[in-house]
Structure formats: C-alpha cells, structure tokens
C-alpha cells in the first residue's frame, strides 16, 4: 500500500498513481491529493491571501488532473512541477481579475500537463523536505532587493515595469536585479 508523507521508502511513485487515475481509480487520485494538495493550496493561499479562493484553486487543479491524466507524460514532465505551475498561474489569474487591471491574462495560456519539464523529485516526503530546504536556502542567500523583486514577480505576477512602479526603482535596475536573482537561483539549485 502506498504511504503518504511519512518519509518511508514504500511510497508509491507518481507514475504508478497516474496510471491508476487514468484507469479511474479515485483512491489513487486521493493519494496524489494527499501528496501534493498541501503545496498547491499553500501557494494559492500565499498569492491570493484567502482560504476560500485557495481551496477552489486546489480543487480545480486536481479535478483537471482527474480529467486529463491520460495526457500526462511523466517521461517528459514532472507532476509536482506541473501542479505548482498550475497553482501559481491560476492564482495569479484570479488575482489579476480581482484587481481588475483590464489587462489581458498573461497566464491564461496555462502550460499543458506535459509542458513543464523538470525532474522535480518531490514524490517522497524526504525529497520534498530536502528540496524545500534548498529553495529556502537559495532565496535566503539572495540580497534583499533581489529577493523582493523575485517575490513580486513570482507571487504577485508583476512585470518589470510594474515592479519598478511598486518599488520606486528605475526600470533598468529592476531588470538587472531580477535577471541576477534568477541566475543565482539557477546556479544554487542546479546540481
């Protein structure tokens, strides 16, 4: 039987669970939900700032997983990665609609379930904890202004010029900060 988030080595793989979901196994969906819903919900709540909307985002994403699992190619993509991208994009969309910026939804074209390529190994709770520790460490090591620019872009969906308006910094400075932050992050997280 699969284990859920206890660090045990008997955890069933995402691939096996996806196959069971394709076959209509609701328990497999529930196990994937147990594995990833916390991450999805937390990201949505961080972006949207309220529980109700975050719950809807989490529910919608796992419902889509149920309906489109057959299209997911684990050889190309990472389920954890796709879920996190979907959680972020949908939450940013909601945020922008709520703020009625009157802008086209940049994130409306959500990447398909096989369009997030990365071996994001967060299937087991041990791997998840390790990855969380790496990401937090990398962010903590960024200079404050770089980290802030990155968080405004990632968690609020702001563009370069919107960040510049928000922080009062010159546009060129914001671009350099964001670019440098992303470079540092990639070096810190890539093996």
């Amino acid at each position, binding site marked *: 039987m699969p284990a859920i988030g206890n660090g*045990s080595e008997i955890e069933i793989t995402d691939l096996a669970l996806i196959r069971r979901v394709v076959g209509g196994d609701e328990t497999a969906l529930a196990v994937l939900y147990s594995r990833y819903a916390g991450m999805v919900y937390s*990201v949505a709540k961080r972006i949207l700032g309220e529980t109700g909307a975050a719950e809807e985002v989490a*529910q919608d994403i796992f*419902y889509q997983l*149920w*309906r489109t699992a057959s299209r997911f190619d684990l050889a190309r993509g990472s389920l954890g990665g796709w879920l996190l991208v979907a959680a972020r994009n949908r939450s940013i969309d909601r945020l922008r609609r709520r703020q009625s910026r009157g802008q086209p939804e940049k994130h409306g074209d959500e990447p398909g379930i096989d369009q997030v*390529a990365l071996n994001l190994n967060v299937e087991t709770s041990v791997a998840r904890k390790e990855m969380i520790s790496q990401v937090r460490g990398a962010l903590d090591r960024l200079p404050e202004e770089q980290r802030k620019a990155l968080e405004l872009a990632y968690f609020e969906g702001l*563009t370069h010029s919107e960040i510049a308006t928000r922080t009062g910094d010159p546009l060129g400075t914001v671009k350099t900060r964001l670019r440098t932050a992303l470079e540092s992050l990639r070096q810190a997280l890539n093996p």
Partner: protein
Amino acid sequence: MNGHPQFDVDFDLYALGALEGEELQTLESHLESCPECLRRLEEARGRLSRLALSVPPEPVPPEVLERLLGRVHAHRAKQPAPIFAGLWRWATPALALALLLLVVALGLVTARNRDLTRRVTLLQLALTQQETEADRARHVLDVLTAADTVKVTLVPASARPVPQGKAFYHAKKGLLFYAANLPALPTGRTYQLWLVPAEGKPISAGVFQTDAQGNGSILLPPLPPGVTAKAFAVTVEPAGGVPQPTGQKVLIGLVS
C-alpha cells in the same frame, strides 16, 4: 531578437511573466516556430516551479477533498457507458426506449451509490494513512529492540557527568541494573544495590564495582520471588557488602 534567446534566464523571465512590450512579443513570435526554445521554456517552467516550495506548507481543509471527490463522481456519472453509446446508433425506437429506461435506472442506482463510493474512497485513504503510521511504529520498535542498537545518553556539553542508574525489575522474572558515572571508591569500599520492598526491610541485590568510566551492572541477582518493589537504592558499603544498608545512599529511585 532574430535568433534564439542567448540565455536561459530569458526563458525564466518569460515563464515568470515579467517580460512585456517588445521583449515579450519578440520571444513569443520566436517560440511559435522554434521547438528547441519551447523545450527550453518547459525547462524554465519546471525550474521556476521550485520557488513555490519556499511557501510554508499549510494544512488543506478536509472538506476540499470531499468536494473534489464529489465532482469526480458527478463527472463520472455524466459519461455514457461505451456500450450504450455504441448501441444507440443502431437501436430501434422501442429498444431505444428500453435502453433509456435502463440508463435512468442505472443513473438512480449510481446516484445512490455515489455517496457510498465517496465514503469508501475516504476510508481507503484513511486506512492507507493508518497503515503508514503502523509501519512507522513497527520501525521505531525495531530500532529500540535490536540487539546491536547503540544507546547514547546526551547531556549538556559543559556539564559534569551525573551519576545515574537504571533498574528493570519484574517480580517473577528478575532484576537488571546498570549504573553510569559513579565516582571511583577508595580501597575496601564497594557499591551495594538494594531492593526496598513494599513491606519489610531492604533486600540486598548484590555488590558491584565500577570501571574507569564509572559504569557497573548487576544482572539477574538471586532474589526471593514475587517481592513487590517500592524502590531501589545504591549505597556505599564495606567490601563484600553488608546484610542491611549502613552507608551513604548515592542513588535512589522510587517505583512509580
């Protein structure tokens, strides 16, 4: 930008949604005709998804799963069974009516079963979690009871080792005792272990010496069977021991 973007970070910026204006349009038009750059964009999406892990995880309210499973069942109920979909095209009106009635009947049964199915799924999930916890408990027990498990007591680094003893006593099966960090005794003196019964005088459980680290033990000493212990104590006595304690108590422990 006529060719491929030069840096991976350009794809990061695009996936992040930070690009705008001409930069955005140029990259988007390039992506339309460049599978290689689409692949790099997919990598950038995956790379950036890690940022979400910086958010402290929060528990999801349990009703979200229940609502999700409700939608799953509703979705499933809307799907026509393939056999009916195939037959429908060939059915006569009478057969069509019969099939329709059958579908309605099945729908009623399905609706009735839907809630039961959801409950079963939730129970299966709970069972899975319980089995996981049981596995973990067995693992903990394995570690505690394995013969080659190393047991280490940690104390503050600056503290001097504190003398201590541990007694494992079963009124019918016997007594195990070991002590640690006891000071060395002068020649002619020994440590003596006492079982203090619920009623009556202390009973000697034997004498012991300590090694250079102050460790000593007494395993399964001869004791009268069935004695209920109230406490255990260690005293310092003349070499060879004494029938009743006379010296200073260095350790004592009450049976709780």
